[in-house]
């Protein structure tokens, strides 16, 4: 093995991380080479110096900042209810309706017309609600009274049959007598 090759492995050799066979070859070379022996001593000194550097303590404010930015301050909806956001949202909604409203001319009608239109709209809505309420009442009545109705219907049907039979018999008697 040449000195350049040993140089490429010297600190790994010092750590004992080489394969056994390679380790023995490097060791044999170092024993017989003064230059590589000096290199080994120098490398050992540097390695010891690097490894003796103590880690610095992390400033507590760094840990606090990390925790503040992650767990302690979670997303909240509260900032959305701040006045500036509420105002911005209102402006957005109103302008949206204004610019997308198809009958813009109606917006500039006299107030009486607007009141009349609003009243008729309210009436329409009330009428629709009444319609829905009636429909619901009917549905409810049907769901509750359906079995009774059927029974009554059957009873009535039987009664009607009986009546019709008795009427037939009467007619027959009249015909015969």
């Amino acid at each position: 093995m040449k000195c350049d090759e040993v140089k490429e492995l010297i600190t790994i050799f010092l750590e004992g991380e080489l394969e056994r066979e390679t380790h023995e070859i490097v060791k044999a070379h170092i024993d017989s080479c003064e230059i590589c022996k000096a290199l080994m001593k120098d490398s050992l000194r540097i390695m010891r110096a690097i490894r003796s550097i103590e880690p610095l303590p992390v400033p507590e404010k760094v840990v606090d900042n990390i925790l503040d930015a992650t767990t302690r301050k979670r997303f909240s909806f509260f900032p959305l209810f701040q006045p500036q956001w509420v105002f911005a949202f209102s402006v957005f909604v109103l302008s949206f309706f204004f610019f997308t409203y198809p009958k813009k001319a109606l917006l500039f009608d006299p107030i009486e017309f607007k009141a009349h239109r609003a009243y008729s709209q309210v009436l329409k809505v009330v009428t629709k609600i009444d319609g829905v309420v009636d429909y619901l009442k009917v549905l409810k009545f049907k769901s509750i009274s359906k079995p009774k109705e059927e029974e009554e219907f059957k009873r009535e049907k039987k009664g009607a049959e009986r009546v019709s039979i008795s009427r037939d018999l009467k007619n027959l008697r009249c015909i015969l007598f």
Partner: protein
Amino acid sequence: MSDLEEIVARCLQGEEYAWEYIVRTFSRRIYNMAYQITMNPDEAEDLTQEIFIKLYNSLNKYTLGSNFKVWLFRLAKNHIIDWYRKKKYVNSKIEEMKREILIDYHSNSFKDTVEELKEKVRKGIEYLDLQFKIPLILRDLQGLSYEEISKILDIPVGTVKSRINRGRILLSQILRGEK
């Protein structure tokens, strides 16, 4: 499942104490790694915070059972390299530091105490190229195994060994004033 993996699992379930444990356990190592690369305490603080916030936001991408330490260091390494590239690290600062080391070395080379040598080594690491510096820091200052470093840097173990060895020799040459 190891203890650390269990803590990570708890953290994924949203337990704040688990997250705080991770921050307190690894912040020192990440801070030191950042400091060794930047040699600037303010930059190291900022980078540590950024790395942990990034970690918090991407923790759900971590697959339980794979090595969390390796995953964290890889994330840190990528972030620091990005920072390094964006910053286009100031060469003049390195040159200045190199001159300082050489003056120190030649004036006091045989009288170095252990503390002085440590300080010079600390400054000397700064002068190393990033491809030697990061593996050297991970190995000698963070105490990671060659296999872990190989996974973090995504290069073969042989390459890791070679870079670390070369880094140490370069450092030795820098301190001797040969580079």
